[in-house]
C-alpha cells in the first residue's frame, strides 16, 4: 500500500461543498448551479464513504461540470487519485495509469485556478498529490521530488517533507 489513502480522504476539502456558492452581484448570463452541484458533491462523498467509488466519481464529475471551481476540481482529482491508486493495488496498471493521468490533468487545472496566496494550503496539497502520482504511479522520483519541493514552497506540507526525506534515503 504505497498510497496515503487515509490522508487523501482527510484532505477532501469540506469547504468545497460551499465554494463559490455566493456569487458577487451583477448581471450575468452564467447560470449558478452551485446549489445542485453541492448536492451532487455531497452524494459523491456519501458514495465514496460507502466504497462505491465509480458512483462517487460520476457524482463528482457531474458537480464539477455544473460548477467548475478550483475546490471541486481538487476534490475530483483527489478521488481520481484514490481510485487510480486502488486500481494499481488491484493490479490493473493500465486503468490505474489512465486514472492517475486524469488526476494529474485535474490537479494542474486546480493549481492554475487557485489563488496561490489565499489558497496556498490547497495548492501545496495539489503539488503533494502530483508528487505521489509521479513517485508511485509513474516511477519518476526526480519529478516527484520537484513537485514535493513546490508543495513545501507554498505551505509547510509535512507529508511532502517526509516524502522528500524518503526519496533522499531511497525509500518509496
Amino acid at each position: 500500500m504505497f498510497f496515503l489513502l487515509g490522508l487523501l480522504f482527510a484532505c477532501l476539502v469540506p469547504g468545497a461543498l460551499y465554494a463559490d456558492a455566493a456569487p458577487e452581484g451583477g448581471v450575468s448570463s452564467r447560470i449558478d448551479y452551485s446549489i445542485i452541484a453541492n448536492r451532487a458533491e455531497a452524494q459523491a462523498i456519501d458514495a465514496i464513504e460507502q466504497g462505491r467509488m465509480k458512483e462517487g466519481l460520476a457524482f463528482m464529475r457531474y458537480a464539477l461540470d455544473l460548477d467548475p471551481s478550483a475546490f471541486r476540481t481538487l476534490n475530483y482529482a483527489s478521488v481520481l487519485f484514490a481510485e487510480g491508486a486502488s486500481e494499481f493495488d488491484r493490479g490493473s496498471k493500465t486503468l490505474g495509469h489512465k486514472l492517475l493521468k486524469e488526476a494529474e490533468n485535474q490537479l494542474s487545472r486546480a493549481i492554475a485556478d487557485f489563488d496561490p496566496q489565499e489558497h496556498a494550503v490547497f495548492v501545496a496539497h495539489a503539488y503533494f498529490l502530483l508528487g505521489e502520482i509521479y513517485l508511485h504511479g509513474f516511477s519518476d522520483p526526480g519529478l516527484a521530488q520537484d513537485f514535493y519541493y513546490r508543495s513545501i514552497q507554498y505551505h509547510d506540507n509535512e507529508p511532502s517533507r517526509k516524502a522528500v526525506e524518503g526519496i533522499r534515503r531511497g525509500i518509496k
Partner: protein
Amino acid sequence: MKKIIAILCLGVFLAGCGKSAQEQAGGGNDQQRQEAAKKLFAQSMIFLQEKNLKASVDSLKASIALDPSDPNPYLVLGQLLIKAEEFDNAAQFLENTAKTFPDNGTVYYMLSVANRMAGNKLPSVLAARRSYEIFSAAGDQVNARTSAALLEEMIKEAQAAEEASKKASAGALKAAEELVLGDQKK
C-alpha cells in the same frame, strides 16, 4: 439533438405523475424500492459521465417511478432540460416538480432559473423569492445567499431593461417632436 430533446421531453410528462407512479409501484417494500431508486439515480450519473444521455434519462425516469419522494432525479432531469435549451419544457417540468416538493428550496431555485431562461420574468422572480424564503426559514444561509444573488441579478436585469426602454421612449419622443417642429417650420 432532436432525439435527445424528445427523450428529455418525455421526462416532462413524468413529473407531477409522482403519485400515480408510486401507486403503480405500490405493494412492494418501500425501503427496497428506495434503495433500487438510489441505485438507478447513481447509474444515471455514470451514464452521464459516459455521455450516454438517453440511458441516463431512462435511469432518472425509472428512479422517479420507483421512488417519487426523492427530489434529486427530478433536479437532474430539470437541469438536463435547461442544458438542452428546452427552457419552456424545463419550466413546466419544474413547476410540476415544485407541486410535488413545495418545501424544497433547490427545486424553486431551478424553477426560477428555467423560467428566467424561458423569459418568464415574473414567475422567475416569484420562484427565486420562494427559494430564498425556504432556505432562510431552514437556516441554510449559504443557499439563501445564492437564491438572493439570483433574485438580485433579475432585479438588475429588469432595471436595465426599464432604463433601456425609457431611453428608447425618450428618443422616440424627441424624434417625433423634431418631426412635428420641422413640419410647423415648413
